[in-house]
């Protein structure tokens, strides 16, 4: 076993060869595919007369285009139907397992692979989706790829990659009550910027990180990409192992004991050299909300939209664009900004603990008049678990719609979208112009509990001011 960071060790384990161009051929341990970025890759394989090298290391689901109201087939949208039937055909032809609608295993690709136990420490994980960084929460090296690279992984189970530098994001202390992993990552991105992580993998470490649950760690690593870092990871520990134990695709019996033993050796060495380190104090972080058009334009809930003078010169042009687009003036307090639509879900915050946090706010309250609020579980398993706990009823009684699993309004490739200039409070990951389906629509990113709080008051508010009624 080589020494260094977890990133170094996993990289070395998966290195196949150095390629003539100077990049490294890296073996991919788990290849996740979905309906949006794979059809052209399969078509290219067909054109080149190639087959899928490791269908058993390839796992498919359908998430981006699925409707969340009725999922009966054929879908009302013929393009969506064509995409799913193409995926079904490609998987059948190449012997790839497809976790389809109704299988009990369908859902957002970054929700299902962890919950099935497919994602494990020490693996390399690739998927044609930038939020593949999520899987780094397990101590895997996981990164998003484009369709040509999906083709390469299908054909060779490997990729041409260049090694990243490692920046340790050291978070000391404990997050305050009512402050979540979403707030932490929005704070990190706000501090280091949306391009701060370009060229780096982010290693999240420190007492505040080890105190996080697996689902919180997934939220954190999910948005590493929004900070420019293609991968984020957390060193595996007892929290990781406890989460994995007993999952359908996790090792069991004697193999489990051997696995844990091996996983422990992957952790970054005490004396591992990182290329950069940034230290945060967890206790100073407030619930954080974005006000602008990049995920780096964030504010603590008690803060105001910055004036140009408060910003670095390089940030001013995009701030001016954001003032115009968001119709938010410098100096406006973010608390109190009215919202139209509230969305709880996505690969960032569509897991059971996210729904519990939102339900604790919603229980015994009601969505404010004129607000459309809906909850989209991240997977069929999440939906089942939530329904078993009665969370669906809590949400329905509070005036939220309870939907079927999928990516939904995170990127609005299905019928869920904001209209016109509507402004959404969203537990998703991107507030880019036009992201949620309307070319002039606006998005405020925040934690699921903060979205629920915005839904019941009709405007952005500090969830810590609302009493909570968590599940027993």
């Amino acid at each position, binding site marked *: 076993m080589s020494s260094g960071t977890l990133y170094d060790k996993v990289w070395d*384990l*998966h290195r*196949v060869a150095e*390629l*003539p*161009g*100077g*990049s490294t*051929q890296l*073996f991919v*341990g788990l290849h996740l595919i979905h309906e*949006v970025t794979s*059809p*052209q890759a399969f*078509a290219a394989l067909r054109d080149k007369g*190639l087959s899928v*090298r490791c269908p058993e290391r390839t796992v498919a689901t359908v998430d981006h*285009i699925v409707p969340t109201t009725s999922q009966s087939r054929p879908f009302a949208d013929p393009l969506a139907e*064509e*995409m799913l039937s193409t995926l079904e055909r490609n998987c059948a032809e190449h012997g790839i397992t497809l976790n389809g609608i109704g299988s009990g295993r369908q859902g957002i690709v970054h929700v299902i692979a962890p919950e099935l136990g497919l994602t494990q420490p*020490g*693996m390399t994980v690739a998927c044609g989706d*930038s939020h*593949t960084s999520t899987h780094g929460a397990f101590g895997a090296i996981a*990164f998003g*790829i*484009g*369709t*040509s690279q999906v*083709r*390469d992984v299908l*054909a*060779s189970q*490997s*990729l*041409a990659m*260049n090694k990243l530098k490692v920046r340790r994001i050291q978070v000391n202390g404990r997050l305050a009550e009512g402050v979540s992993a979403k707030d932490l990552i929005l704070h990190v991105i706000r501090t280091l910027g*949306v*391009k701060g992580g370009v060229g780096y993998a982010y290693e999240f470490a420190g007492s505040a990180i080890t105190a996080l649950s697996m689902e919180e760690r997934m939220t954190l690593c999910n948005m590493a*990409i929004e900070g*420019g870092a*293609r991968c984020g990871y957390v060193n595996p520990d007892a929290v990781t192992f406890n989460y994995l134990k007993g999952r359908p695709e996790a*090792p069991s019996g004697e*193999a489990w004991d051997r*696995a844990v033993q*091996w996983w422990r050796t992957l952790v970054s060495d005490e004396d591992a050299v990182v290329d950069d380190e940034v230290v945060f104090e967890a206790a100073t972080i407030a619930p954080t909300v974005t006000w602008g058009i*990049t995920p780096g334009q964030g504010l603590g809930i008690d803060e105001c939209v910055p004036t140009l003078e408060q910003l670095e010169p390089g940030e001013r*042009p*995009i701030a001016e*664009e954001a003032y115009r687009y968001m119709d938010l003036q410098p100096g406006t307090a973010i608390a109190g900004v009215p919202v139209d639509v509230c969305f709880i879900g996505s690969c960032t915050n569509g897991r059971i603990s996210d729904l519990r946090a939102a339900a604790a706010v919603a229980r015994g309250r009601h969505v404010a008049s004129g607000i459309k609020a809906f909850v989209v579980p991240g997977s069929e398993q999440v939906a089942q678990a939530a329904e078993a706990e009665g969370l669906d009823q809590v949400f329905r009684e509070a005036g939220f719609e309870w939907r079927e699993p999928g990516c939904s309004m995170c*990127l*609005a*490739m299905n019928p869920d979208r904001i209209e016109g200039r509507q402004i959404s409070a969203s537990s998703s990951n*991107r507030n*880019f*112009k*036009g*992201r949620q389906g309307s*070319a*002039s629509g606006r998005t405020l990113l925040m934690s699921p509990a903060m979205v629920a709080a915005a839904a019941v008051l009709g405007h952005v508010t500090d969830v810590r001011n609302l009493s909570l009624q968590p599940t027993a």
Partner: protein
Amino acid sequence: MNSFPSGPVDQVVGTALALIGEDIDTDRIIPARFLKCVSFDALGDQVFADDRSELNGEHPFDQQQFQGASILVVNGNFGCGSSREHAPQALMRWGIRAVVGISFAEIFYGNCLALGLPCATAPAETIAALQAKVLTSPALPWTLDLETMTFASATDQWAVAVDSGPRQMLLSGRWDATSQLLDQGEEVKRLMQLLPYLNGFIAQ
């Protein structure tokens, strides 16, 4: 439209288009609703669809003076956000064959390389000067030369950078990695026999 590149990419010659703005994400380059497709063929017309419709004909991709341009000059963190290869595909189907900017998002850069679309970088001051020049002289032909690492017109010459690995891949024509990866089939097999998680976690 020019055909897509094949073989060595040492030079890109053509007029340029300046697109000003930091952090232009791939949702803007190609909005998600256009990802509902099983082929990339129609994407050229849809590039920057929402930005163009907002500017009502005044977007650089619509302006008469930039039609036929093949080199895009951008600012920092271009192509951030979603991994969609639809973004470089849309740019290329519109006619772009090279991008010059301050910096590029990682996944976008890799997607471009896999299509033979060079992304060259230059300092912010150089880019500002280049964009000003392109805006005032849109008909001026430029050459991005990966051998000499320059971006030049008849009157100007600027130094640009391309990382050595991608540069070698483009110059040698080996930017399409598939065949190189397949050449190592035996090595992949050997590695698979050693990886603990593929072998019951039994030490090899």
